[in-house]
């Protein structure tokens, strides 16, 4: 008897949790879309994860809004993905929150796409100081120049590295 009770409780708890996360993410997405309208495009919404796509001009504005109104205070990572077919590079910021307990399990992916031939994007270093090394790594590995970042320079690769950024898709590694 007791066992079944606890099981029920557990399933209830899980349902409550899921409902809560759903509510949270839909309220978050709603507030973003009401504020920004067509400027922000929702890419996917999963449990505790969602991804929004903004244009490079609106990146700073959106990030500022997310930090001030929803408590996203740090970025877990900033990375880039190369799409040579679209001639674009996608920059992803995985934003998380330590100050808002409701958003502890939540990761919001803020992404933008820049032109591949001359990739330039606004740096978020003034909004999230935690992206400093991640952006520097992205500059090095994908060649994206971050406007406003104090040090767009060599970080991890050898000092005499003279080849193209290695994470570009057309950078061939030996034997492949």
């Amino acid at each position: 008897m007791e066992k079944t009770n606890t099981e029920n409780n557990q399933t209830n708890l899980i349902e409550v949790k899921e409902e809560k996360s759903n509510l949270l993410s839909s309220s978050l997405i709603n507030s973003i879309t009401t504020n920004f309208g067509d400027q922000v495009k929702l890419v996917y919404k999963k449990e505790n994860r969602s991804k929004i796509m903004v244009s490079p001009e609106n990146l700073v504005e959106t990030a500022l809004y997310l930090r001030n109104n929803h408590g996203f205070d740090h970025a877990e990572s900033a990375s880039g993905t190369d799409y040579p077919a679209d001639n674009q590079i996608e920059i992803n910021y995985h934003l998380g929150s330590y100050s808002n307990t409701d958003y502890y399990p939540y990761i919001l992916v803020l992404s933008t796409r820049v032109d591949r031939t001359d990739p330039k994007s606004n740096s978020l270093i003034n909004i999230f100081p935690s992206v400093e090394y991640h952006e520097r790594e992205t500059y090095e590995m994908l060649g994206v120049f971050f406007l406003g970042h104090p040090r767009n320079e060599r970080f991890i690769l050898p000092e005499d590295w003279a080849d193209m950024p290695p994470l570009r898709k057309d950078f061939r590694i030996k034997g492949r």
Partner: protein
Amino acid sequence: MIKDLVNPTNFNLLVSNIGDVLVKALDAPLGYVINWGRVWSLWPVHLETACCSVEFGAVSSPRYDAERFGILEAFGSLRQCDLIVVQGTVTRKMAPRLRMVYDQMPEPKYVIAMGACAITGGLYLDSYNVLPGIDSIVPVDVYVPGCPPRPETLIQGTMLLQEKIKRSKVK
């Protein structure tokens, strides 16, 4: 007779002959003593190139205790070291440093390549930043395979090196 001996050229010849005989007589035992000293006091450099350093730490841990073989990690200067254990991957950024460390060590010096990455490049056969083995920058005495090698394998490798030192000729 005595005059002949006192004659400087002859005297020098005699001394040099005695010296040659002495060197020949003492060469084997002295070399043995010197080699014995070298065998039981291998001091490795504290240079960690990559992740094999974890198992190198385990070799000095109480369970394996490499000090039984005279291998004591020297926390002093490079000038006191005579063994360099290349602990894993050597990247293009680390390679000049490795050679610099090797050049600073006094003769005689020995190199153990620890792990698949140090021997041939291992997993990183197509990486853009990894050397395919360290043979191209330093001469290697003993290869210790594994990724990372078990501490036993490294101890076996150092025992092989000790065997090599015992048989080598002292200059």
